[in-house]
């Protein structure tokens, strides 16, 4: 009995080999290919990258000390004595404060979302895969939290715990756990009905093994896209918390806090006072658009 049975239907029956028509491309390579050819996403991604770099290297790129006050240099317009973006109500350099503020905003944007993705994702996978009563228990609990408007919930939790960065991040994490859980649970439930999960069960794999090798890889995509879209929301909410005084305390540089303190001075130098708001807006919308681009790129036809 020959070792190779049946006809190899891959190799052509010509004498010479036909060149392979399409390069073998994995999933992530397809994603990268699509991203490379998506100028809009690349452009906004570059802006996000710049903001991140400015935040990370703030001590090196900031022209002035963000905490150095100056009585005569208060509320000065663009370009006054080297202050490219003017000064705030205590004479501190706006550009430097914006750079330092980026750190906190980005931190409070990414960390709560990442934590919520982990916790919510785990709950979603467990609920989605287990089905039945476990699923109902988890999802209905999530629904209770989902019922609260996110701003209200964030303010209530942060306020009850007394404000500050840590409590703010905790509050935001709590806000984002239910939607992450729901997205992951939906993806897992859809996956559970597919034949390859049955085939894995028929091969004798335990539930944990199936989740590890089959579920996670497929659920990661939608979870990642959704989480990236939450980052922009998180930045907004974090700024809102700081604006209300529930975030960092002065004299720390934080965009929301800056907005709050510059509010009264808006008739004096309107452009300077609008800057923190602009920063929040630009960061948030660029994150949002990059997330959209990622969704389009990762939605590869399978």
């Amino acid at each position: 009995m020959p070792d190779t049975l049946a006809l190899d239907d891959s190799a052509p029956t010509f004498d010479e080999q036909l060149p392979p028509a399409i390069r073998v491309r994995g999933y992530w390579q397809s994603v990268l290919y699509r991203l490379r050819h998506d100028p809009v996403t690349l452009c906004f991604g570059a802006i996000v990258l710049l903001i991140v770099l400015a935040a990370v290297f703030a001590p090196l790129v900031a022209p002035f000390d963000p905490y150095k006050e100056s009585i005569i240099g208060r509320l000065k317009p663009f370009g006054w004595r080297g202050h490219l973006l003017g000064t705030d109500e205590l004479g501190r350099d706006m550009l430097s404060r914006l750079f330092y503020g980026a750190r906190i905003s980005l931190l409070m944007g990414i960390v709560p979302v990442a934590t919520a993705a982990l916790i919510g994702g785990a709950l979603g996978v467990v609920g989605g895969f287990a089905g039945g009563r476990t699923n109902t228990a988890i999802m209905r609990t999530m629904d209770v939290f989902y019922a609260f408007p996110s701003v209200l919930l964030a303010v209530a939790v942060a306020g009850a715990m007394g404000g500050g960065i840590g409590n703010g991040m905790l509050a935001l994490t709590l806000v984002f756990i239910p939607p992450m859980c729901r997205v992951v649970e939906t993806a897992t439930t859809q996956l559970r009905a597919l034949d390859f999960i049955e085939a894995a069960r028929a091969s004798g794999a335990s539930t944990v093994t199936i989740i590890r090798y089959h579920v996670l890889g497929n659920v990661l995509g939608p979870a990642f896209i959704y989480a990236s879209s939450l980052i922009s929301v998180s930045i907004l909410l974090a700024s809102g918390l700081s604006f209300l005084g529930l975030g960092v305390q002065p004299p720390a540089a934080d965009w929301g806090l800056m907005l709050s303190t510059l509010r009264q001075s808006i008739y004096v130098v309107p452009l300077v006072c609008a800057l923190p708001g602009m920063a929040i807006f630009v960061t948030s919308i660029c994150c949002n658009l990059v997330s959209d681009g990622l969704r389009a790129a990762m939605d590869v036809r399978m």
Partner: protein
Amino acid sequence: MSRPAICATRCRATAGWGGREMIANPGAPLAEVRDLRVRFVTREATLHAVNGVSFAVAAGEVLCILGESGSGKSVTLRALLRLLPPRRTRIEGQVTIGGADVLAMPARALRDLRGGLVSMVFQEPMTALDPVYTIGQQIGETVRRHTGCSRRAARARALELLELVRIPSPARRLDAYPHELSGGLRQRAMIAMALSCEPRLLLADEPTTALDATVQVQLLILLRRLQQELGMGMIFVTHDLGVAAEIADTVAVMYAGRIVESGPAAAVLTAPAHPYTAGLLASTVHGQRPGEDIDAIPGSPPDLRALPPGCSFAPRCSRRFAACRTTIPDPRVPAPGRMAACLAIPADG
């Protein structure tokens, strides 16, 4: 069996675009396609779905386009009504239905054509029917769009049509939603919708593929009867030789976007001239000696994004020779009334 009573109002389409030309020139074919080429262009690759297809269908004739997945048969059918996604698709060639040039038609005339002179039945009735409207409402909508008659008249016409397609308890089924009907009944409802304006040409894209064998045979017999009674031409796309044998007058076999053989059904299906048709026939499981290997065609269909030069079937053909790899075979005549695009058939002078 007598012709069923028809709604008095004439359909705009048959009186408009197609009717006049056809009356003027009764010998002309009902539908004619010349050198149709369809490409789908995406960022990553260009897919050559249809590569020079030409055929003609006479009034009252049933043409069956036979082919496997990737042969381009469904794309050809959809191109006849310009149902392909406009941005990605590039269509070249000529499509004439009832004397009118479909590819050059303005949008409004095209809308009159669809459902009026030409109608289409799809493979998956569950997705082709709107789940939130009843059958009666959907058929009525088509009737009203093309004739402009009242709701009551449209409902009466819908009932008439359900009776025509032999749906049991038609009055009750008028108010049924698609999900309440079985697959076979949904398909009959779709045929009823397609026939609502007495089309001269019916396009059918694998309408029985998703159905069980016993339901399929009922539907094929129904379609054959309706086609004969109403005198429609029909273009029926399928991958099943048995279905083609049951319904076709003429058969056109497609492979990799080209027609490789065509001719009367009996001739093509019992004595094929092209090696692909012969291979299809031999590999269809039908009465071979059990326990013995089936004569399968080796290899797989080519990637439409990168067609081999020369004859697209050559890599899998047992009768190929050197010229097959370089020259695309031209249509040749193995017998009167038949065509086969194969270099092994002598070209007549």
